[in-house]
């Protein structure tokens, strides 16, 4: 049995193409049903996100299966095959396993380490499980992929650092102020970056927002949006000491906060630290503010530096993740190869024969007055019993031929008769996401 992967991603196709071949999650039942009706395709899962559209399937006919899925992707969306074919990639055997493990671990993502992809695959698998398009192999395969992704996340720092400026600001604030749940953010001026950062701060648990702007109406509007408090620009310094985090991005030509103001603010705060982020160009906050004790000033450039460093860190961590994946592929591949029919029959036969021989030897060894041809007779008797016992399962296995059922039987036989001491990890990951 073979696992195949056919799809396209942000690496091979532009968004215009990706959106054309995307499958809507609301109507995923229909394509899933059509997919497993394709000739030679036994199980199937469709993963469709804004960055990738991929089909995972099992088949006995690798080349035919891949070709049919490629055609299916074009035909289902009423597209010319030639239009999407150059963007499609396909993998089989070990490469397919590696690909899915990498995707689930977010190594193939646009932003390496972003956490959404795992949840998206879990959802896609959830649909396939619900509509019964995935069977024993893909079930095991995707659960394995989830556990690999979990391992990558806990054993490497791939997802632990901020890779956006707004998020880097939050991380930095936590390094200074600790828990943000009792901290207040002040927005001076309005700007996209500022608002985005403010949103991140609120999502990270910040207590409240104050907004000030030269045009008070705008401040009021923004304050309303954040459920915060609008402050007139003229009385900025009457309120500044209440803020723990100050985000500034006015269009002012001069600095609006100088070191003297900072000293005053710190004093009113009883020396509690304050975190300034200056997003404006030209700058709103005098660089000398950073020299004031307990005031910490950062500019966008600093945040950008952190982001760059984190990205570099992530690619280092990605190497560790690849090692983990290498280990896991071997294990899974071994399990997959046990699902072949013939070796299973041989193994089952050997197992029975082993038992037969052992028991026969035990009996003969303790038998003193053995009639001359008794040994031979007993031998053929036990062989006959064994063959009779094995006849039915062997022929059922051979006849069930293709289809998902045979994998089920093989797997069951392997487990029931302990045919191979395989290392199994059945941590069934819940599909709550």
């Amino acid at each position, binding site marked *: 049995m073979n696992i195949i992967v056919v799809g396209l991603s942000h690496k091979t196709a532009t968004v215009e193409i990706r959106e054309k071949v995307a499958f809507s999650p609301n109507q995923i039942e229909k394509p899933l049903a059509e997919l497993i009706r394709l000739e030679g395709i036994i199980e199937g899962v469709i993963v469709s996100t804004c960055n990738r559209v991929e089909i995972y399937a099992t088949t006995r006919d690798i080349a035919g299966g891949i070709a049919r899925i490629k055609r299916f992707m074009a035909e289902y969306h009423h597209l010319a095959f030639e239009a999407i074919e150059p963007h499609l990639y396909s993998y089989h055997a070990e490469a397919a396993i590696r690909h899915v493990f990498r995707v689930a671990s977010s190594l193939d993502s646009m932003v390496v380490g972003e956490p959404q992809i795992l949840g998206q695959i879990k959802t896609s698998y959830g649909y396939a499980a619900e509509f019964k398009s995935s069977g024993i192999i893909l079930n095991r395969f995707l659960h394995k992929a989830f556990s690999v992704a979990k391992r990558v996340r806990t054993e490497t720092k791939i997802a632990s650092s901020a890779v956006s400026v707004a998020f880097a600001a939050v991380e930095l604030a936590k390094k200074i*102020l*600790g828990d943000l749940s009792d901290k207040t953010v002040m927005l001076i001026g309005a700007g996209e970056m500022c608002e985005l950062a403010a949103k991140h701060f609120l999502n990270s648990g910040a207590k409240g927002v104050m907004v000030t702007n030269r045009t008070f109406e705008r401040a009021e509007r923004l304050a309303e949006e954040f459920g915060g408090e609008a402050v007139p620009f003229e009385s900025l310094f009457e309120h500044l000491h209440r803020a723990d985090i100050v985000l500034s991005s006015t269009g002012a030509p001069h600095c609006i906060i100088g070191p003297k103001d900072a000293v005053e603010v710190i004093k009113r705060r009883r020396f509690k630290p304050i975190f300034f982020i200056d997003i404006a160009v030209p700058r709103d906050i005098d660089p000398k503010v*950073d020299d004031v*004790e*307990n005031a*910490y000033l*950062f500019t966008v450039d600093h945040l950008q*530096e952190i982001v760059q*460093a984190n990205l570099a860190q992530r690619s280092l961590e990605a190497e560790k993740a690849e090692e983990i994946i290498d280990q896991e592929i071997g294990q899974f591949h071994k399990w997959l190869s046990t699902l072949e029919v013939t070796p299973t029959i041989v193994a089952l036969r050997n197992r029975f024969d082993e038992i037969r021989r052992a028991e026969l030897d035990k009996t003969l060894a303790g038998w003193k007055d053995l009639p001359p041809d008794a040994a031979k007779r007993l031998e053929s008797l036990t062989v006959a019993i064994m063959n009779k016992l094995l006849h039915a399962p062997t022929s059922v296995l051979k006849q069930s031929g293709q289809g998902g059922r045979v994998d089920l039987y093989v797997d069951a036989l392997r487990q029931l008769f302990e045919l191979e001491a395989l290392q199994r990890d059945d941590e069934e990951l819940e599909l709550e996401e």
Partner: protein
Amino acid sequence: MTHMFFFLTVALYGCAVAAYLACLIRTSPLFTLWSGRLLAAGFTAHLLSTIHLASKVKYLPLTNMQESLSFFSLAIVGGFIFFERKYKVTSLGSFIAPVALMMLIASSSLHPEVRQLHPVLQSNWFWFHALLAFASYACFTIAAGVAVMYLTQRYFLKTKHFGALFQKLPSLETMDDISYRCLTVGFPLLTVAIISGSIWSEQATGSYWIWDNKQTWSLIIWFIYAALLHGRLTIGWRGKRAAILSIVGFIIVLFTFLSMKHSITW
């Protein structure tokens, strides 16, 4: 027996220190887990070793430098385990555990003075005084360790160096908080230790305060920490200033502890 426990303690502390230092270099939940476990195991061995020694000599083993250093180290580790449980700051261990290990090694390099217990030490006030003094010293040691971490982190933030160590160290606010907690626990302990010490002094010498070096410096230490606590509570001294002061306080504590013998006992 005591020896066996002692070597076990040194070995476990050694492994714990190695694990804590490894934590600084590499992030791994395994290192974090094992550094804590090893230190807790070391602490248990240390405690057993101390109890065993105490039951053998029939007094609390803190009457000479060798015993005292070991006891100091025990108190530091105990205090650290308490604070780590509360604040979950593994990186503190990378700064504190080596200090405890060094004290223990220094202690083992000293010769055990075989001698009779001085009669003036056979007072409950003395044991009470000594126990509290060590507990307060342990608090001040941890405060100083946190202060060093605070200054390091502050340096990174001011110079905009965001290296691996920056990521490992806790937030300024957390460290400030731990340091304050250490003070609020350590200072009352020190106060009661000085009072009980002077009662013992009265029993031993007939005078509550004899102005020997040890007493004088203890008073200086008391004033330093009193000033630090007062500054914090009234004008909100914190951050760099508080950190430097608690390091200075600790240096004087160490200096007093190591260099001055009690004129009453020695």
